[in-house]
């Protein structure tokens, strides 16, 4: 699960990491109020950042500086309601603008190949790490935390030296590195990224001081671990979520909405992806990824049908079930029941093999369903049905 920058910053701060102050505003007037506060506290400018769960906010014009409270209000007014990659901005983060001396990248990922938490650092902060990886992969330095002992101080120091950080910032870098790994463990995150990690200049009672702080934060949480973190489940941004996703979660269905016209209902993730691929190969476009999971019963089948039909672009439905734990006859009954109750009549092609497939075939035949023997045949029939339906509608 992705969470907003402001929430990610809270998680970092909870582990004692240095994060400059910020506030979240949902209206331009609120943005003005918090901007006034930061400006009164001595900031020369405030930064206003769109809170959306997609990258490239800066390029889209969703990150701006303001020099006065009035300007902050005006800019926030422009950013709120803005469309960034299809997502409407509903809140902004406001904070004092930092005087940046030098930017770094520091992030922890769950590395599949080494099966360890890997901490990565680069002296090229502020740019997307994927971009750095493509252009100058040698600029990214990595250490792998020990699976039983965690990240050791010498490993963090090694990274610090590799990115050219020494002197007074070395100790802070080690602390922040450990804090990032701690944030990952405390919240079951699979990614914790601070980009930029920056040396900023602040005025203190004895003149200017420089310190290392986390200016931005990105955290993604392991969905499998959310049941044991009810507090984190609350960070799910329902503003940015498709209502279908919530229903899918409720029924334990794995569902991803796509752009095509052929709705897919499949058991098993690998087979569901394959079904989409074969629809594409047969000349169609899948409307969704949908895995009803193992052992699905009639109620889950009807919920899946509702999710698929809620998409007005769907012109045909392809059901592909390879029964193992899932019983073909249960699915067939669910389909018959769901079709009797559905409001929209969409052609459906059903292929059920494996456990209790004979009984399923009998039920589907009696109910006059269009069936297919192989996956390739099912995909071809569904694509033909969708094309026919589109032609009829035109």
């Amino acid at each position, binding site marked *: 699960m992705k969470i907003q920058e402001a929430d990610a910053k809270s998680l970092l701060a909870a582990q004692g990491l240095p994060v400059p102050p910020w506030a979240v505003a949902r209206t331009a007037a609120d943005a003005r109020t918090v901007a006034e506060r930061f400006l009164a506290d001595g900031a020369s400018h405030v930064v206003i950042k769109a809170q959306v769960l997609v990258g490239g906010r800066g390029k889209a014009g969703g990150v701006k500086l303001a020099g006065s409270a009035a300007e902050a209000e005006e800019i926030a007014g422009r950013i709120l309601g803005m469309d960034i990659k299809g997502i409407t901005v509903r809140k902004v983060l406001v904070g004092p603008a930092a005087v940046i001396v030098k930017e770094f990248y520091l992030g922890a990922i769950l590395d599949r190949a080494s099966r360890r938490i890997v901490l990565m650092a680069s002296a090229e902060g502020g740019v997307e790490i994927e971009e750095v990886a493509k252009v100058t992969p040698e600029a990214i330095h990595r250490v792998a935390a020990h699976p039983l002992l965690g990240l050791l101080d010498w490993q963090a120091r090694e990274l610090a030296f590799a990115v050219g950080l020494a002197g007074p910032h070395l100790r802070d870098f080690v602390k922040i590195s450990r804090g990032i790994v701690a944030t990952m463990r405390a919240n079951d995150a699979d990614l914790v990224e601070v980009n930029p990690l920056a040396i900023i200049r602040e005025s203190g009672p004895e003149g200017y001081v420089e310190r290392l702080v986390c200016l931005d934060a990105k955290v993604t949480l392991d969905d499998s671990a959310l049941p044991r973190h009810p507090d984190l489940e609350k960070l799910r941004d329902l503003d940015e979520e498709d209502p279908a996703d919530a229903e899918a979660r409720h029924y334990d269905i794995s569902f991803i909405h796509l752009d095509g016209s052929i709705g897919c209902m499949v058991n*098993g993730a690998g087979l569901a992806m394959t079904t989409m691929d074969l629809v594409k190969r047969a000349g169609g476009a899948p409307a969704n990824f949908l895995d009803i999971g193992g052992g699905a019963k009639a109620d889950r089948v009807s919920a899946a049908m509702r999710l698929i039909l809620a998409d007005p672009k769907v012109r045909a439905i392809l059901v592909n079930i390879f029964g193992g734990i899932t019983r073909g006859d249960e699915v067939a009954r669910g389909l018959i029941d769901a079709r009797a109750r559905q409001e929209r009549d969409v052609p459906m092609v059903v292929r059920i093999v494996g456990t209790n497939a004979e009984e399923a075939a009998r039920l589907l035949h009696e109910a006059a369903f269009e069936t297919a023997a192989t996956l390739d045949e099912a995909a071809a029939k569904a694509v033909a049905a969708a094309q026919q339906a589109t032609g009829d509608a035109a």
Partner: protein
Amino acid sequence: MSILIGRETRLVVQGITGREGEFHSRQMLEYGTRIVAGMTPGKGGLHALENRVPVFDTVADAVRQTGANTSCIFVPAAGAPDAVLEAIGAGIGTVFCITEGIPALDMLPVVEVARAAGARLIGPNCPGATSPGRAKVGIIPGSIHREGGVGVVSRSGTLTYEAVQAMTDAGIGQSTCIGIGGDPIIGTTFLDILQLFAADPETEAIVLIGEIGGAAEEEAAAWAAEHLRGVPMAAFIAGRTAPEGKRMGHAGAIISGGRGTAAEKVSALEAAGIRVADSPTELPALLREAGYRG
């Protein structure tokens, strides 16, 4: 021979008295798997499956009294890492963890402990393995198999059934079929299984079924290019139409930062001389074209 499981397998099922554990244990027994013990804490002394399987409180008891050498875990996610560690602690050499939904960070120390103990962990979130005609461990339907010489390794469940059924229908039998699991952190990788197949005299050809996410298919392809010259191979990769940044059902099936795409995997396999099917139903024909005569 076969790999991982066979006639010598003496299985203990952890979580045998649960709904899933009981259902699949019955299927395994019917297939001919030697289930020597069940294990559920607090139910030691009872017998499961109409008195056919003695139940123990601990895996160590099961090992001492029945000589169990392999474990299959149906314990819910919250207790599954502990179940794996208990099996390893009791000296079990091969542990299949069927459980889905284990937080990934929980698996890091478990994988490390398995490695240090020299135990083999398959999964989690895997369907298990079948050595046709000998034994099946896990949830793969027994009916899809046929005895033969093709080793099958996959990250998926039902997709594997689809591919195996297509092979069986085409008269191509299997030595062992293994699902290694759809999670990002798993105990046994494609590469590990390829190495086991390479050393197995009965495995004459190999089918690899991958999907988007990570780079384990690429790693396996590079090794195969060097060590499996002359072994007929075919592959399938699921997720050519998967969008970036979305988890496609399996926790590990995600394209992130433009990496882990099906296209990358297909080209790595093809560069290693392995033909990649456009549909799982084409796998038997590709195996034949690669020179498999079994």
